[in-house]
Structures are given as C-alpha cells and as structure tokens.
C-alpha cells in the first residue's frame, strides 16, 4: 500500500504547489508612497483574497524599469501621482487600454486618459495658502494677481523641479498663453520673500512663522499640517473662481501593457474607483475622491467648496517640457 500512499502524497504535494503558484497575486509599481496605498490594498486582499505585491520608487526610475523589462515585466499595474507622469507613461507605451464601463461611470472624463490608458483615483487642488494674521482674504483673487506689486516680498514658492508646479504652469500655458504666463511668473519671482522651498510643508510653516504671507501649495499638505498643529495661522483660498477655477491634479493608475494578469488588474483598478475604495484612498491622504458621487471627508469639506479647472489634465503632461524650460529661463530654480 505504501506505493499508493506515496503516490497520493506526491499528488497532493504537487496540487498544493500548483495551487500556491496559482494563488492570485498582483504586482504594482507605485510612486505613490507605501503608507498611502497599503491600507487600500489590504482592504482588497481581505475582500478578494488577491495578494498585492508592490514596489515604490520615484516615477521616472519605475518607468525606466518597466520599459527595460518589456514583455517580461512582473508588473500588472503602474500607479503614480500627477497627470504629467501618467501622460508620460502612456506616451512611452507602458499602459494598455482598459475599456471599462465601471471606470467610465465612476470617474469624470477629464480625469481620465482620452485613450482609456489610465484613470485618476484622487484629486488634489494646488491652491493659495495665506496667513490669517497678515492677509485679508479679500486681497486675494487669482493666481495671476499674486504677481502684482502689492505682494512684493510676501510670496513663497516651491521649487520648479517639483512636478506639481510644472503641471500648474503647463495648464496656465494652455489657458492664458505663453506671454501672460511669462509675465505672471516674472511677477511671482519678483515678489518672493525668500528663496524657493524644496517642499510644501516647509512653505506652509514659513507662512505660519511670518517669513511670507502667501504661497501656492497642494491642499493635502495643508490638511496634514493643520491636523498636526490645529492652531496654525494659515488658511486655504480658492483662486480664479470667476474664471477657469482652481488647478487640480490627480493621482492615478493604469494596467501595464505586458500585465501577466490583465483581468485581475482591471478588476483591482475598477474596484479602486468604487465608493468603498475611494473613501479610504482619498481620505488617507486628505485628498478629494475622484469618484464624483462621493463627498470629500468631513475634514476636507471644512476648507469649503470650489470650482475646479476642468481643462483636460493631459495638458499637464503634453506641455510639461515647455513649462520647465520657461521656468528655467525665468530663473525659477
């Protein structure tokens, strides 16, 4: 009998092995950081049993890796922040088209690739932050107005190396043209109170401490700072409400061209646009859900309602090199 038993054991072991090998497992390359994606992935694993392996790095190295790996890449999904990066990944042919009714229903068209290559998953506003001590909100109106002489020595900016500023300028180029954008940036730079900062949090703290009065930041940085220091003397202002609206950007994701399990990856992407996932995905970073049927979290809602710039966000990618060169020429470091 021992032969049969061995045979059975062997078969069982083999089955166990293959079932392990076939356990659903997705691989995600992400430039959105670990602590901002893990809660959502954990939820999905709990719900479906699909394990998600991810690796985080900056977007450019991850794209280079995806390209180098080509057809052999283990990655099923590429996730990143900023529309410029998503557009670039699409340009490099890293995504595959996903024609999903769920995604189209959940996410507004201007936050998606027009070729269905990627979709936005959360929204952030790049807006004006001001000192509640030294600025009357009535002084504020538009991004462009910060170039006026009345703001001399009162403005703080972040480095032009950050893609958020590159996207802001790219959309400005699109909506107000190069000549006007040049004037505005020259005005901003002439009004600087201090050399540009390397991150938004430091900029907000400088406003709080009195080094400058206004600055341009992403909304969630304010949210985080406000959460950590509730009596910070800084508030957000929504500019350009009379015309194009506040510049919004996205974080988003797409299924890779050479995904090993495209169906599973699409399921994950679709799920991430649903209310259940959107709630966590946006709230964990104090962002706005990209799913329009969802209200922002109570905390985020206290910043007030605003009109957002509905320019197709792909512009951020298409005009990014132009924006960088302009900022370089004008000496925005």
């Amino acid at each position, binding site marked *: 009998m021992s032969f049969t038993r061995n045979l059975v054991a062997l078969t069982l072991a083999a089955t166990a092995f293959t079932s392990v090998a076939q356990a659903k497992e997705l691989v995600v390359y992400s430039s959105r950081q*670990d602590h901002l994606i893990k809660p959502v992935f954990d939820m999905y694993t709990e719900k479906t049993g699909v394990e998600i392996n991810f690796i985080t790095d900056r*977007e450019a190295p991850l794209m280079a890796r995806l390209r*180098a790996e080509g057809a*052999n890449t283990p990655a099923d999904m590429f996730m990143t922040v900023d529309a410029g990066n998503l557009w670039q990944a699409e340009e490099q042919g890293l995504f595959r088209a996903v024609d999903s009714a769920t995604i189209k229903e959940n996410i507004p068209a201007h936050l998606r690739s027009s070729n269905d290559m990627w979709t936005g998953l959360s929204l952030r506003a790049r807006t004006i932050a001001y000192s509640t001590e030294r600025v009357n909100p009535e002084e504020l109106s538009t991004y462009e107005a910060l170039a006026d002489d009345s703001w001399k020595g009162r403005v703080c900016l972040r480095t032009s*190396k950050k893609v958020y500023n590159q996207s802001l300028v790219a959309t400005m180029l699109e909506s107000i043209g190069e000549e006007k954008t040049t004037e505005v940036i020259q005005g901003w730079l002439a009004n600087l109170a201090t050399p540009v900062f390397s991150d938004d*949090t430091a900029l907000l703290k400088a406003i709080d401490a009195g080094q400058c009065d206004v600055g341009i930041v992403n909304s969630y940085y304010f949210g985080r700072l406000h959460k950590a220091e509730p009596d910070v003397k800084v508030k957000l202002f929504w500019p350009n409400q009379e015309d194009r609206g506040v510049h919004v950007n996205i974080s988003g994701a797409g299924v890779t061209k050479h995904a090993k399990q495209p169906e599973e990856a699409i399921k994950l992407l679709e799920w991430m646009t649903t209310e259940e996932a959107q709630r966590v995905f946006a709230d964990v970073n104090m962002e706005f859900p990209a799913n329009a049927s969802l209200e922002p979290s109570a905390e985020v809602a206290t910043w007030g309602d605003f009109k957002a710039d509905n320019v197709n966000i792909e512009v951020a990618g298409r005009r990014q*090199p132009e924006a960088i060169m302009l900022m370089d020429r004008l000496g925005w470091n």
Partner: protein
Amino acid sequence: MPLQSTARKTRWQLVAYLCAALVLMPLLVLLISWQDIDQQIWGHLLQTQMLRLISNTLWLIAGVAAGVILLGVSLAWLTSLCDFPGRRWLDWALMLPFAVPAYVLAFVMVGLLDFAGPLQSLLRDWFGNDFRLPPIRSTGGVILTLVLVFYPYVYMLARSAFLAQGRGLMEASRILGQTPWQGFWRVAIPMARPAISAGTALAIMETLADFGAVSVFNYDTFTTAIYKTWYGFFSLQSATQLASLLLLFVFLALFAERRAQGRNKRFPANDKPRKGALYRLKGPLAWLASGYCLLVLAIAFVIPVGQLLFWLLSSGIADLDSRYWGLIRNTLTLGGIAAALTVSVAILLVLAQRLQPIRRVRSAVALANLGYALPGSVLAVGIMFFFSYLDNHLVVPLQAWLGMANPAPLLLGGLFALLLAYLIRFMAVAYGPLDTSLARIRPSLPEAAQSLGQPGWVVFWRIYVPLLLPGILSAALLVFVDVLKEMPATLLMRPFGWDTLAVRIHALTTEGDWTRASLPALTLVLVGLLPVIVLIRRSGRH
C-alpha cells in the same frame, strides 16, 4: 623581479581588468547614450543652466574639500597627538557623525535653523521680529552640512596616519629644533598626505554623487540637473549623457590626484607606534581644544540627534510596529553581505595594483573606483538595463527552452543585482583603507616568504591577509555603514519585501513629512552607531 612568474603577472592583470569590467558594464550604458543627442534639451541646458550648475558645483566641491580637510585634520591631530580633557572619548565620538546620512542631516539642519524653525523663532521672541540668522538654505548652509557629514572620512584616515607615524619621528624633529607647529607642517602632514587626500577624495566623490541633501536645500548642482533632466524632461538619455560628463570630470580629478601622489614617496610605518600623547595641553589651550572638539560633535551629531528625538516624541511613535524589525533586518543583511563582497573584491584589486604596478593595471584600478562618484540612480539604471537585457535575451528564452512553466526574469529584481550595485558603488570606499594598509607592509616581507619557496596562496593567506586585517576591518565597516545609508539604488533595485530603513525615510520625506521620518532616521543612525564605534576604536590599536 625574477620571483614573479609570467603566469602570476597575467593572473593579477586579469583580476584588475575583471574588476574594471564590472564597473564598466553599467558605464557602458552611459556611453551608449551618446548615440544621438537631443538638441532641444542640450540647447536649453547650455543656454540657461550650465554655467550656474558648474559654478555651483565647483563652489560646493571647493567648500567641502576645504572644510573636511580643516576639520578632519585638526581634529585628528588633536585626538591622536595631544592630551586634553575628554580626549579619550572624543577620540571615537568625533567619528559618530559618520552614522548620520547626509539627507538626514540636511533635513534636520533646515528644519532646525530655517526661519520657521525653533531656533530662529525663539530668537525672534527674544530680540524682536526683525532678528535674522544667516539663511541656512544657502551655499554656505549646504557646504556646512556636507562638511559635517563627510569630515569623518578625513578624520579617520588622518588619525590612523598620525597614530602610525610613531613617536620617534616627531621627537626627532623636536630634537632638531623644530617647534611642534613646524613639526606638524614639515613632518606629520607630508607623511599623512596620502591618507588626507584619500579621505578628501572620498568626501568629494560623495558630494558629487549627492542628491538627497542638496535637494533639501534646493541647491542646484550637476547631479540635480541629471535628475531634473530625467524626472522632468523624461529624457533618460540626456540625463545619462550629463552623468557621463560628471564622470569624466571625476576621472580627471582622480588622475591628477594619483599623479600628485605618485611623486610623493610613501613612508612605511614606524615599527613602534606611539603610546600616549605627545603634547600635553595645559590651561586655556587644553580647554580650547576640548571646546573645539565638543562644538563639532554637538553641531554634527548631538543636536541633530536631539532634534530627531524631539520630533519623534512630538509626533508619537505610533508608526513603530513589527514592520520595523523587518526593516532593520533587511538593512543589516544587505549591509553585511555587501560589505563582505565589496571588501573581498577590493583586496584583489589592491594586490593587483601592488604586484603588477604597470600603467594598464593602474588605469583599470582607477576605473574600478569610479563608481563612487556616480549618482546612485544613474548607476542603478546602468545595471538595470544591463540585467534586463540579459533577462530578456538569455534568462527568459533559456527557461522557455527548458520547458519551464512561467518563464520570468531572474536577475533584475533579484538580490544579486542590488548587491552588484553596492559593490560597484562602494568599491572606492573599501579600496582606500586597504590601499593605505597595504602601503604599510614592507615589500621585503612577502618577498622573503616567496624566496623561501612559499606558493602564492600561502603568501596571500599568511602574510597579506593578517597584515591587512586592520584595513580589512575598516573597509568592511565603512562599506557596511555606507550601504545602510544608501538610498537610490536600493529604491530602484530592491526585490519585493526588501524595504530598508532608507526606503522608509524616502517614503516619508518625499511627502515632506520630516517629523514622521524621524523614526526611521533615528533608527538608522542608531543601527550605524555600533559599527562606527568599533571602526574607530579598532583603528586606534595596533
């Protein structure tokens, strides 16, 4: 040399060429990038950026070089030859800043000293709203920060050199009527010059490769331009072209340094190292010496660590969970394996240089040391392309041919690729101490062994290895600590589940969350402390 057979000569040459080839492999990718040139980007860079970038970079190098020599040599002289209150522990404590990664000190310095930081806020409360300190986000601020993290290279090597000079020499110079000051300039410094310039070269190469620290200050250098071209214009090609120019510059600098050193004779160590101090400082002079050492230690280590601790306590240690053990374990494992690997290869390299001191070997050795000046990401990309090429054209087809079920790339995303990146990057770090150590072995010793008919491997294991042991230990610890701090290559090439403390710091600092980054940063510093202390205490003994 009649004792050296042709076979042995060839063997050592081969070793040197192999090591050089290893480094050349990713560099080749840099060269291939020159196939065609993106005129638009280059035109833009040349017109608007280049002059400022080059001048910024040169200022930075000059400032850091001057600073690390000044601090490193003066501190080494004080702790190794003089006696003053606190010398015994300052001797090793002054090495502690080596455990602090440059990007960590940078964000602590800016957080602490900028306008909105606690110090200036306090001073404004005292002296009124118009009070200003000199701005920390400035050329001076960057130089100060980099000097404080990189001076230990010079300190450590100069200190060993001073200690090895032995008692007799300085006493002889005294008997010949030289003042201690003259003795310092005419005897001690010239003799320690190889060590000092080796340390300075390491500091400069670190400076050139640094991205993390300078970007906290938003100080544009050649390296930040490489990254900007890549991340902003998405032109990896132009970025690698820039990187190859940087490398050319380093190569020329190293070449000049070697030439200059070649003219200086190396002195074998005194057989009887000095015990006890040579100069007993008394009165105000002694306190001045203590005060100076304490000041450096405070600014470079105590205050930054204090600030991290403060941030940690204020942000709460909610992040501290079982994952941290995993992070620490990964960090230590990578550091350990990389140190062993790098030192082994570096030993072969120094021996090749010693036993075959011909020009071709010297060039190969110089090449093999180049990886250190390369920005980590650029190096990683080079290796990545190379491995993915092998994966796509060799590994995967081979698996398919063998009939394996799911052919998958093995090299990229595996541990091996990451370790190779460390090896290439930190070869120069291991090479320095080993080279210094080897220079102290009189050629007569292995020659005697050989003339007694001992085969090469016996000479290697019984003469070279034991005599190189101090150098081996220093090299291993240096590489170990450097790997702990390494960020860009680890980020790009780590296999799944191999997150390290540096990776965690990156995740938090890219989000501008410096206070939360204090937990991994502090852990990283603590993990690095022990090897640093062993390193410095060990190198004091002979």
